[in-house]
C-alpha cells in the first residue's frame, strides 16, 4: 500500500482487507506505530487511557483468519476502532476518567461494544474523556488531559477528546464517543475530524455510563463522513435492554453518500452568526454555505428565537440528571471505596470527595435545582424552555428547510488551561446544545481553518433524518476536498 493507513478511509481499508490486499494484523501494527508516535516527545497526545496491544493483535489475527477462510466477520471486519472510556467493555477497564472507577472492570459490556465485536471490528483501546462526560476540553479527566494533535498546546475539545484525538492522530480511522451537549461534535470540530450525533434513541445507551440520560447519545467520530456513518450504522438500532431506544429501522447510510444537495434547502439561523462568533469561524462557515449553493442547494435565513436560553436551560437540566445518575457512586457496592472510613457517613463523604472539581460543581448545582424550594421555579422553567427550543426547530422544518447549518463552535480550539470560568465549558457548546435539547441528529465536519486550526460546521436535521444529514455532510465534504485539491 502506498498511502499509509492513517491517511486512508475505513471504507477503503475495509475493501482491501476483504480483497486480501491488506492484513488485519498489519493494520493493527500500523495503529500501534501511530499510537507510539503520538506518545513520544515533551507533549504526548495521550488519547488513550488503556490499551492492550497483545490482545488486540490476537483479535486481529482471529479476524484475519476468518476473512481468509471466507467466513464474513461483519461489515467492520478487521478495522481498528477506539472506544470512549465511559462505555463498558469486558477486556479493558472502564474508568470514565474518574478516580471513583480507577481500575474498574465492568462485568458486562455495552450493547454498542458488543455490536462492534459482532461486526468484526478490532477495539484497540479506551480513550480519555472529561470525568463522566462532563466538560468540553478533556482537561477534567482525573488522569490528565489529552492534547490536540493538530496543535499540542491546545485542547482537543471534550468530553470525547480522546476519541477525537485518536482519529486526528491517525491511530484509528474511527472511534465511538458520547454526546450530551456537544461532546462528540465539539471535539470533532476542534481536531478537524467528523463527528456524528444521532437522533436521541437511535443508538442503545445500555452500557454507556449515564451523565444526563435524556440528552446522552453514543456518537461516531471518523476521518470522513463516510467512515463515521459506517461506524454509526454498525451500532444503531433498537436494543431490548434500552427502553428508550427506538424501533425506527437502521437506515442505510451508505446509500446516502455521493448524492449531492441539488434541490435541497439549507436554513441558516441568524442567531448563530452574530457577535461572539470568531470572525475566522464565520468566514469559513459562510464559504461552506457558498459551496452548498454552488452545488444547487437553496440557502435561506431562519430564526431560532429561543436559542439564547438553551445554554442556561441545559445547565439546569443536564446537571440535575447528572446529580441523579452519579448518586450511585458511593463506595458501597462497586468501584473505589476511599480507605479509612469508620462509619457509613464517612464511606460516603470520603469516597465522593474523589470526584473532580467540575463533577462536584455540576452535582451540587444539579442537586440544588432539584431541591424542594427550587424545583418548580428553576427546573420547571428549564423544562419549559426545552420545549420552546424544540418547537423552534419544528417551525424551521415546517417552513420547508431540509437541514440547518451553523458553526459547530464559536471559536476554534482554545489553549490548554485557558478555561477558568466555572461552567465556561457550556459556552463552547452554545450551538451544539440546542439540537441536543430537541433530540435531533447533528453532524460536525471540517469546513475550513482559522490560522491553521480546524473550523467545524454543523448540520442539523429533523429526527430520524440521518440519511439526509449524512447526504448533505458528505456532499459538502466532497466539494471542499475538490476545492482544496484544485
Amino acid at each position, binding site marked *: 500500500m502506498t498511502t499509509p493507513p492513517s491517511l486512508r478511509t475505513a471504507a477503503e481499508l475495509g475493501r482491501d482487507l476483504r480483497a486480501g490486499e491488506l492484513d488485519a494484523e498489519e493494520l493493527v501494527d500500523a495503529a500501534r506505530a501511530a499510537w507510539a508516535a503520538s506518545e513520544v516527545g515533551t507533549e504526548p497526545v495521550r488519547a488513550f487511557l488503556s490499551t492492550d496491544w497483545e490482545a488486540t493483535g490476537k483479535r486481529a489475527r482471529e479476524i484475519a483468519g476468518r476473512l481468509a477462510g471466507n467466513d464474513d466477520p461483519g461489515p467492520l471486519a478487521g478495522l481498528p476502532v477506539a472506544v470512549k472510556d465511559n462505555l463498558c467493555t469486558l477486556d479493558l477497564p472502564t474508568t470514565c476518567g474518574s478516580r471513583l472507577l480507577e481500575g474498574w472492570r465492568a462485568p*458486562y459490556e*455495552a450493547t454498542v461494544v458488543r455490536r462492534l465485536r459482532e461486526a468484526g471490528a478490532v477495539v484497540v483501546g479506551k480513550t480519555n474523556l472529561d470525568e463522566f462526560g462532563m466538560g468540553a476540553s478533556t482537561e477534567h479527566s482525573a488522569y490528565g488531559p489529552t492534547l490536540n494533535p493538530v496543535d499540542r498546546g491546545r485542547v482537543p475539545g471534550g468530553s470525547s477528546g480522546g476519541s477525537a484525538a485518536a482519529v486526528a492522530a491517525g491511530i484509528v480511522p474511527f472511534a465511538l464517543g458520547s454526546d450530551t451537549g456537544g461532546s462528540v461534535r465539539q471535539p470533532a470540530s476542534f481536531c478537524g475530524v467528523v463527528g456524528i450525533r444521532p437522533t436521541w434513541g437511535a443508538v442503545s445507551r445500555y452500557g454507556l455510563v449515564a451523565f444526563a440520560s*435524556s440528552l446522552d447519545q453514543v456518537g461516531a467520530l471518523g476521518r470522513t463522513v463516510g467512515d463515521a456513518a459506517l461506524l454509526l450504522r454498525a451500532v444503531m438500532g433498537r436494543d431490548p435492554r434500552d*427502553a428508550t431506544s427506538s424501533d425506527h429501522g437502521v437506515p442505510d447510510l451508505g446509500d446516502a453518500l455521493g448524492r449531492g444537495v441539488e434541490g435541497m434547502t439549507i436554513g441558516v439561523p441568524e442567531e448563530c452568526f452574530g457577535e461572539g462568533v470568531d470572525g475566522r469561524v464565520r468566514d469559513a462557515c459562510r464559504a461552506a454555505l457558498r459551496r452548498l449553493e454552488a452545488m444547487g442547494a437553496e440557502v435561506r435565513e431562519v430564526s431560532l428565537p429561543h436559542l439564547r436560553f438553551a445554554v442556561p436551560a441545559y445547565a439546569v437540566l443536564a446537571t440535575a440528571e447528572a446529580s441523579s445518575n452519579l448518586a450511585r457512586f*458511593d463506595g458501597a*457496592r462497586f468501584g473505589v471505596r476511599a480507605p479509612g472510613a469508620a462509619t457509613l457517613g464517612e464511606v460516603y463523604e470520603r469516597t465522593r470527595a474523589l470526584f473532580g472539581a467540575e463533577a462536584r460543581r455540576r452535582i451540587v448545582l444539579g442537586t440544588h435545582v432539584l431541591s424542594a424550594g427550587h424545583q418548580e421555579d428553576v427546573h420547571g422553567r428549564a423544562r419549559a424552555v426545552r420545549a420552546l427550543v424544540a418547537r423552534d426547530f419544528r417551525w424551521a422544518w415546517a417552513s420547508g428547510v431540509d437541514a440547518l447549518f451553523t458553526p459547530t463552535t464559536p471559536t476554534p480550539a482554545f489553549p490548554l488551561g485557558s478555561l477558568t470560568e466555572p461552567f465556561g465549558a457550556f459556552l463552547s457548546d452554545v450551538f451544539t446544545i440546542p439540537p441536543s435539547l430537541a433530540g435531533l441528529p447533528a453532524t460536525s465536519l471540517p469546513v475550513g481553518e482559522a490560522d491553521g486550526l480546524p473550523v467545524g460546521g454543523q448540520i442539523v436535521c429533523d429526527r430520524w433524518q440521518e440519511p439526509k444529514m449524512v447526504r448533505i455532510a458528505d456532499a459538502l465534504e466532497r466539494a471542499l476536498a475538490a476545492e482544496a485539491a484544485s
Partner: protein
Amino acid sequence: MSRPAAPAPDGFEPVIGLEVHVQLRTRTKLFCADRTEFGAPPNSQVCPVCLGLPGALPVLNRRAVDLALRAALGLGCTVHPESAFVRKHYFYPDLPRGYQVTQKGRPLATDGRLDLVSEEGEKPRRVGIRRVHLEEDAGRSLHDRLPGLSALDLNRAGIPLVEIVTEPDIASPAEARAFLLRLWQVLEYLGVSDCSMEEGSLRVDANVSLRQAGTEEEGTRTEVKNLNSFSGVERALAFEVERQAALLRAGGRVEPATLLWDAARGEARPLRAKEAARDYLWLDEPDLPPLALDAERISNARDDLPEMPDERAARLRKEHGLSEEHAAVLTGSRELADYFESVVHAGADPREAAGWVMGDLLAAVKAEGCAVDDFRVRPPDLAGLLALLAEGVVSRPGAKRVFARMAETGRPPAQIVAEEELAREEDDATLRGWVDESLAAHPAEAARWRAGEERLEGFFVGAVVRRSGGRADPGRVADLLRARRREG
C-alpha cells in the same frame, strides 16, 4: 367492625390512613430478568440493572403491570391510560442507584374503595383508596450477620411492588386491622401477591392523627413504621392514639414525627428529625417512556377479574343453601373457596362438604403449616371419601380416620379403607360383641348406665367405636346399646 369507632375518651376521634406495600407475584423483577424467589442465597438473584451498575438501564416487566392493573381494578380504582415513573432520591447502601424508581404525580390508578365486612343489616364501612401505583423494592441491610459489619443482600432490590394508599377513612386501630385482613383477602383473590407479612411481601406504614369528635379540623399527623403483623398494626396504632390523646389532654401539642414501632417493647420511638425530613429531589425518570395502557388492555383486565369474596359468598349461599356464616368462612380465601367448590363439583353434598372443609381440612392444613393448594388431600379424593360415607361404606368415625391417613399418605380413600380394614362393620353380632366388651371393661359406668344415666350413652358409644378401630357406626352402636339395656 361495622360501626364507626366509638370516640376515644375526651371526645377525640382517631383519623388513620394506611400505606401498604405489596410485592407482586411475578417470576422476575420489575426492571430486569432476575428471579424473585424468597429465601435464595444472598446476592444470587442480581444483575447489572438491579445492582445499579454504571450504564445499566431499566426495562419494564409487562406482567408486573398486568398484576398492578388487576389490583387497581379489583379495588375499584380509575385506571389512568398514561402514567409515568419518577426517581425518588436518598442515600442508603441497599438502594443501589441512590434513587428508587416509583410513581408520583401520574400514578397508575386513583379513587378506589374497599368495603369492610359488615354485620348483617348494617351498611359496610367504606375505606377510600387514594392511589395504587407501581414501584421497585430496595435490597436488605443486615446488621447482625457479620461482626462489626453491615451486610447487604440485594436479591430484593428491584422486586415489583404496588403501593396502596388509603384515604384517612379508618376510624380506629381495630378497623385498621380489619381493613388489612380484608385487603389481604381481596389481593389473594386477585392472585396478585403472596401477601405474607412474615416473608415481607406485605408491609404497612400508618398515619395517625386525632380530631375533636364532630369537627372537621385535622389534627397533626404522625407516621408509624416498622409494622410487621396485622395485630402489630393494631397495637401500634392503639399506642400512638393513646400517646397523642394523653398529650392533648394535658394541654400539649402533637408534633409531626416519624415513629418506629418496637413490637418487643410495645412502644413507638421517634426517628431522629434529620432522618425524617428528607427532600427526595423528585425527577421524571428519563430511562423509561410513559406507561401507556390502551383501552383494550384495561377492558381485558377488567373482564379477567375473578369473582370477588362477597359475590362468591352470595352465590354459594344461593346455590348450595349455606348459611351466611359458613359462606363467609368458606370464601375466606380464594384457594379455600376453590377447594370447596371442587369438592362439590366432584359430586359431594354441599353441606357435608362444607363441614369437612371448614373443620377437618382447615385443621389439618393448619397443623401442617401448608397452603390449601399444597395440601396432600385433593378435592376429588375428599369427594370420594364423602361418597363412601354417604353410601355407608365407612362410618363417620371411620371416615375421620381415613381422612387422617389420606393427609399422611396421599393415598385415595377406597384404597385406605381396603388396606387398613376401615370399612364399616356391618355384622351386628360383632358389634354386640364389642358392646359387651366395653360394658364389661367399665363396670361402674355400666351400672350407672343401666340405672338410667343417659349421659353415659356417649361414653359407651365412643368406647365401642374406639374398640372397633373406627369401623363401628355410632348410630347402630347406640341402638344396640339400648337394646342390650332393655334386655337387662
